[in-house]
């Protein structure tokens, strides 16, 4: 036990002390936050970058639809009286650079449902969708009016049904609580991705560490002082702790930097919402029905203790399972480049698990979801997605038992591969060799 702890310590500090590790650990949160913040920052600078661009709107219909296009930040729309014979370019040239472009609303716009923007600039999707929304509403109203039925517009409005589906879950005592599959699903997906990334990144790290020890021949000295099993487990635990450290630092830094950025720019850093006014509207619409408090309630209603304790179990099991495979295969080769014949199938398994997990969001209690969440190689990733949907107790139990049984078995198998592999040099190892070592 003492030796194992020593090996864990050495493994941990040898990686944590590396320059590449420190740089990566500090840089990553900046990259993440920057990627999130760039659109916000651009929007921020755009808003303050002086004058708005002006677009002339030529309304050939004579119905004054042009007035419907309201100004937004950065854009001003100036209606012009129509002249169907003039070319848009002539307007533009006449303005002599005072306008950025010309918007033509053609005479038969109600039938054709088309308007055109002429400009030397590329028109941003944001601008297009703004104009689209403005014109749509006005034209719809005009069209309804054109039917000549009194109060049709009111009828139309009332006829519009938009049902929002609320789900209510009974807890064990039969009490009602608002369930929140959205929040839980997002949480599940995140945990699932986290497991996937962690296993792949740190699994590879373990393999490199094994190969390095083998290549520089220190391994023979070390295994004359401890059991190969201790060395392998020390590595797996040490690298696991390194991973936890890195993730903790990332989480803390991302939150801190994110807060900092949003303070500086005074806006939310979530990029999709800002770039897309429609999404913004959708959110406002939803917010009218679902009050803020109900969103909060749904966030709070997730059984975090249950989800997180399951996560920890699956995470440890999944990590052990894959890490031991990486350690075992690492010991069987002399160079990292030789290892791909063994690691490719392992990585394929992980990718299958990830895709199964993504697919299970659609149908979390379907055949595939159930099976993939029980099979040990995919369960750590897939079960995370299923957790919010009340997995039957027996499935959860079976899945965890199978996962840990398999992980234990694979640790044992890998230890046998490792024991022989680390002391074998200059021989190309085949799967057949490895099977013989296990026996």
């Amino acid at each position, binding site marked *: 036990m003492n*030796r194992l702890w*020593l*090996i864990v310590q*050495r493994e941990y500090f*040898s990686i944590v002390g*590396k320059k590449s590790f420190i740089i990566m650990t500090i840089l990553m949160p900046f990259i993440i936050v920057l990627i999130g913040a760039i659109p916000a920052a651009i929007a921020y600078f755009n808003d303050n970058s002086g004058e708005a661009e002006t677009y002339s709107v030529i309304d050939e219909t004579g119905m004054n639809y042009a007035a419907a296009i309201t100004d937004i930040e950065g854009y001003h729309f100036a209606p012009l009286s129509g002249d169907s014979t003039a070319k848009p370019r002539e307007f533009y040239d006449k303005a002599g650079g005072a306008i950025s472009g010309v918007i033509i609303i053609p005479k038969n716009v109600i039938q054709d449902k088309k308007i055109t923007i002429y400009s030397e600039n590329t028109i941003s999707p944001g601008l297009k969708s703004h104009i689209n929304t403005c014109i749509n509403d006005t034209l719809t109203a005009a069209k309804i009016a054109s039917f000549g039925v009194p109060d049709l517009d009111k009828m139309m409005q009332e006829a519009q049904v938009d049902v929002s589906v609320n789900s209510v879950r009974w807890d064990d005592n039969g009490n009602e609580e608002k369930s929140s599959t959205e929040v839980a699903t997002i949480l599940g997906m995140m945990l699932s991705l986290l497991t996937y990334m962690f296993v792949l990144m740190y699994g590879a790290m373990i393999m490199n560490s094994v190969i390095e*020890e083998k290549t*520089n*021949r*220190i*391994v*023979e*000295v*070390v*295994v*004359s*002082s*401890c*059991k190969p099993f201790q060395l392998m487990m020390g590595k797996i635990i040490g690298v696991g702790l390194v991973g936890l450290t890195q993730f903790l630092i990332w989480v803390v830094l991302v939150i801190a930097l994110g807060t900092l950025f949003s303070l500086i720019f005074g806006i939310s850093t979530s990029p999709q919402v800002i770039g897309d006014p429609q999404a913004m509207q959708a959110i406002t619409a939803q917010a009218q029905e679902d009050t803020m408090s109900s969103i909060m309630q749904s966030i709070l209603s997730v059984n975090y203790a249950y989800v997180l304790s399951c996560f920890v179990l699956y995470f440890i099991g999944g990590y052990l399972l894959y890490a031991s495979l990486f350690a075992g295969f690492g010991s069987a080769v002399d160079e990292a480049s030789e290892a791909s014949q063994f690691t490719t199938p392992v990585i394929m398994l992980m990718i299958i698990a990830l895709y199964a997990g993504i697919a299970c969001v659609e149908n979390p209690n379907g055949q595939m979801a159930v099976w993939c969440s029980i099979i040990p190689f995919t369960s750590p990733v897939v079960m995370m997605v299923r957790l919010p949907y009340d997995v039957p107790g027996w499935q959860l139990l079976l899945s965890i038992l199978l996962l840990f049984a398999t992980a234990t078995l694979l640790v044992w198998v890998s230890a046998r591969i490792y024991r022989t592999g680390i*002391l074998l040099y200059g021989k190309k190892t085949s799967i057949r060799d490895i099977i*013989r070592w296990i026996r």
Partner: protein
Amino acid sequence: MPFIQVKDVVKQYDGHKALDCVSMDVPQGCIYGLLGPNGAGKSSLIRIINMISEPDSGEVLLDGQKMTTNDITKIGYLPEERGLYKKMKVCEEIVYLARLKGMSKRDAYEEMDKWLARFDLTEWRNRKVETLSKGMQQKVQFIATVIHRPQLLIFDEPFSGFDPVNAEQLKQEILALRDQGATILFSTHNMESVESVCERITLINHAKVVLEGKVTEIKQSHKKHLYNVAVEGDRPIDANDELFAINSTRGASAQIRLKEGTSVHDTIAWLNTNYTLTAFNEILPSMNEIFIETVKKLNA
């Protein structure tokens, strides 16, 4: 009682026998040579004594007891393929390996500083191993091997990679460790390097022990009755049909071979009556010669 007792050890890899019923007794406080050509099975045997691998059958006794996991702290092992963690500092590396062998942190630091001073490495204490020259790295590895005061030291090709000056220093350190009571096992195919230090040897060839015993006794039993003789004056030594034959002459000295049953005493007497004898000494075969002869005889 021998300190290390190897009893009928058999080890097989992939259907070929690496060790075939090998037995060996290493007395306490002895410098013991495990000799043999490359691939004879030396490394396999050493790994078994080190408890890195297990024998298929047979056993290894340490001080009369079957070895247990705790016994590995009593062993210091310098493998043929030297290796250290390149990115670690010298002090961290040595202390880590010492602690793996069960030393306390404080003990390890104390002992390490003594050894570093002895090898003039004190100023490299906090440098990374990769910045050291190969010779210095070898010394670091030697320190890591002996720092926990093991009762049994196993050196696999210890002098390879050392320049003559450092090799001599290493030899003196090893002798000093023997004097402090350590038992030392050398494994090598380089006979000359151990001839001067080993008291006993075991010669392995093709997984089997082919020769075993005290170095002096082995040499005696393999001697060819060859002598170097030198006399005064320029007159070359003539052969004597009754006493000896001449192998080669160079001026007034010659290498002679005594006939069967001839005594050294009679030969010296005869030489002294006919010449003025200035030198007469026996030529014992080198271990290298015995090694080659034995191996050839077996392969024939």
